[in-house]
C-alpha cells in the first residue's frame, strides 16, 4: 500500500471553539490508483489532502506513506519528503508571477540540487510534453488559465513524483479547459500509471477516477470501489 490512514483526525483551534475538520478517517490508497475525493465545501477535502501531501500533521491517528508515519516526522523531514515524492496542483495554479513558465517548472527541481543545464533541459522536456514548448519564456500573466494550469502540471510532473495531489485543479477554469485538464490527468494515469489523488466537488473531474471517496463533515461516508463499475454520480450539496 502506498498510503494507509488509521483513525486520522484534525482539529483546528479557531479562537475559542475547536473546529473538527477530519473525523477518524480510515483509508488506504494503492500505487497507480486515480482517486477522487469528493464532498461539499467545508467537508474537509483540502485538510485530508494536506495530510496526504505532508503539508500538515494530523491531531491524532497515523498517516503511513510507504510504511512511514508522517504524523511522527519533523518539519525538516516533511520538507525533504515534499521535495522528492509529491507533485502538487493547486486551484489557483500558484505559479510564481515573476518567473517565466520554464523557471516556474525549474523551481520544482531546486530541492534536487541539479545543475542549471540539467534543470533547464528537464523543464523544457516537461513543458514540451504538455504542449507548451513555445511558451517557456512567457510569464504566467501572459498565459491563459488553461496554459497556466498546464505549466503547473509540468511543474508537478518534472521530478517524476510518486503521487500527484490536486486540489480543485479545474476550479478556476471554464468547461472546455476543464475537460482538457481532465483528459490530461486521465492520460497520465493510463499511459504511465501515475498515481493521482484529486480533490473536487465537480463530478466531471471525479468521473474518470478508479475510486471515489465522499467526505461529509470530516468523515468518509462512502467509498465506491472499482473503476469498471458503473459510475454513479455522488449527491452534491453545493
Amino acid at each position: 500500500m502506498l498510503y494507509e490512514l488509521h483513525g486520522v483526525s484534525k482539529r483546528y483551534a479557531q479562537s475559542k471553539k475547536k473546529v473538527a475538520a477530519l473525523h477518524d478517517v480510515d483509508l488506504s490508497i494503492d500505487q497507480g490508483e486515480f482517486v477522487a475525493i469528493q464532498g461539499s465545501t467545508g467537508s474537509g477535502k483540502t485538510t485530508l489532502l494536506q495530510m496526504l501531501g505532508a503539508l500538515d500533521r494530523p491531531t491524532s491517528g497515523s498517516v503511513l506513506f510507504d510504511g512511514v508515519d508522517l504524523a511522527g516526522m519533523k518539519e525538516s523531514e516533511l520538507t525533504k519528503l515534499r521535495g522528492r515524492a509529491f507533485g502538487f496542483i493547486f486551484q489557483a495554479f500558484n505559479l510564481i508571477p515573476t518567473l517565466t513558465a520554464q523557471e516556474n517548472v525549474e523551481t520544482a527541481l531546486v530541492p534536487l540540487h541539479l545543475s542549471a543545464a540539467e534543470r533547464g533541459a528537464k523543464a523544457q522536456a516537461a513543458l514540451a510534453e504538455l504542449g507548451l514548448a513555445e511558451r517557456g519564456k512567457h510569464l504566467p500573466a501572459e498565459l491563459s488559465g488553461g496554459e497556466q494550469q498546464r505549466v503547473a502540471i509540468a511543474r508537478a510532473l518534472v521530478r517524476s513524483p510518486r503521487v500527484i495531489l490536486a486540489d480543485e485543479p479545474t476550479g478556476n477554469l471554464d468547461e472546455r479547459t476543464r475537460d482538457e485538464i481532465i483528459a490530461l490527468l486521465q492520460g497520465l494515469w493510463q499511459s504511465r500509471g501515475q498515481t493521482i489523488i484529486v480533490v473536487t466537488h465537480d463530478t466531471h473531474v471525479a468521473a474518470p477516477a478508479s475510486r471515489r471517496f465522499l467526505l461529509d463533515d470530516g468523515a468518509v461516508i462512502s467509498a465506491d470501489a472499482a473503476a469498471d463499475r458503473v459510475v454513479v454520480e455522488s449527491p452534491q450539496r453545493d
Partner: protein
Amino acid sequence: MFLNYLFRELRHRHRQAVLTALGLALGICLVVTVSASAGGVRSAQNQVLHSLYGVGTDISVTQSAKSGSGGAQQFAMNPGSTKKQGQSFARDRVTSTMGLALLSTTKVTAVKSLSGVSSAVGGLTLSSMHVSGHFAKVSGSTSSSASKSTSAQPSTSSSGSATPSQSPIKISSFTIAGIDVSDQTIGPLSSTTLTSGRTFTSSETSAKVVVIDAAYAKQNSIVVGDTMKISGVSFKVIGIRKSATSSVDVYMPLLMAQTISGETGKVNEIYVKATSATQIATVKAEIKKTVSGATVTTAQDLANQVSGSLSSASKLSSSLGKWLEVAALISAVAVASLLTLSGVGRRVREFGTLKAIGWKSRRIVSQVLGEALIQGLAGGAIGVALGYAATRLIGAFSPSLQATVGASGLPTSRAGSFFGGAPGASSAGGGPGDALRGLSHTVTVYLHAPISVSLVAVAIALAVAGGLIAGGLGGWRAARLSPADALRRVD
C-alpha cells in the same frame, strides 16, 4: 535560479524596491553629511590647535613676566642737535615678546631630562620694530616752510608760532621666532609647510639665514634669495613657509635671535613632546616642579580654551550630530523593515507554494535577505552619492568658523597692535604663546566636509546592515509561513 529569481522579483516590484533603497539612502546621506561635517569641524579644530602650537608639540611652557619689567618700548628720538632737525632717521628695536619672562636654556635641558619627555626645545619669540622718518623742525626758529609738511596731519594747534612740526613717522613691526634648528619637528615651524626654497639644516645653528612666512613675504614682496636687514644684521632668505595663522613672520636660528635681541642663553617658550599621550598629565606636573612659576599648557588645555563659532559647531556636531545620525538610521531601517514585511505579506501564497514544493525555509529566507541586501547596497551607494553632493555643497559655501583662544574681553595689548596695520600682522597676529598668556587670539578657519574612504565603507556597511535587518524581519516572517496556506489561498 537564486539571482535570477532575486532580480526578477526586484524588477517586478521596483517601486517598492526603489522606495526601500531611497529610505535607506536618505538615512545614509544624513550620516555621511553629518559625519563629514563633524570631521571637518574636528580637522578645523586641529588646524587651529596646530597653528597655535605646532603639530608635534604636546606641552608648551612659558612664564609670565614679573610686574614692572618690560613696558613700553623706547626709542631715542631726540634730534640731539638742531642740525639734525628735518633730517631722516631710522631706528630698529628687537625685544623679547612682551609679557613673557625669559628662561635660561638650562631649563630646557632640565625639562628634556624629565621622564616621560621625548623631546623639548626652546624658542625665543621676538618683536621687531622699525621706525623711520624725519626729525621735527621747530617752526619759527629756522624755517617757514614747516607748515606745508604738517598739512597731512590734523593740527590741534590754534595758531601759535612755536609749534614743533613732525612729518609722518613710518613704523613697521613683525614677529620673529628663534627656533632650535636641531629639532624642527616640534615648535612653531612644525605647523607650517614649505612653499618655496628650503628649511634650516640642523647645522645652521648660527647661520645668518631666515625663513619667511608666506603671507609676510607676499605683503613685502620678499622672495627666496633676498637679503633682509634686521637690527643691523643682514640675513639671507632661504625659504618661504605657509601657515594657517601667520602668527610668526620670520623664523631664524635660536642663536641668532638671542644675538640680535641681546638675550644670550635665554628663551621665552619651551616646546615639549611627551613619549605618549598618557604621559602628558604626569609630565605637566613634573615640569611645574622643575620650572617654578611656569605656565604649563597642554593641547587639551588649549582646546578647552577655544571658544567661538568653531567650538559651538564642535559641540553641536558631537552631541546633536550623533543623535541626528542615530535617529535617521533608525527611521530609515524602520521604513525599510515595514516595506519589506508588507512585501513578504503579499507573497504568502508564493512562499507557501515554494515550501509545498519542497523548498527549505532557509532557501526562502536567503531569497528575501538577498533582495534586502541588494536594496541595502543600492541605498548605500545612493546615500553616499547624495552625501557627497551635500558635502560638496558645504565645501562650495565653505562657511567660516571663528575660534577664539584665551581669556575673552582682554585687549590684545601687544606692542605691535598699538600701531595697527603692521605688516604681517594678520587677523591672527600673535605669537604661539599668546593663548598661554591669557591674551585673546582669534583664528578664522573654513569648514570643509571631507569624505574619507573609511566613512564611505562605514556608510555602505550601515546601509547593508539596515537592509539585512529589514530582510531578516521579512525572512523571519516568511520562514513562519505554513505551506498548508498555499493550498488554501485562492486570491
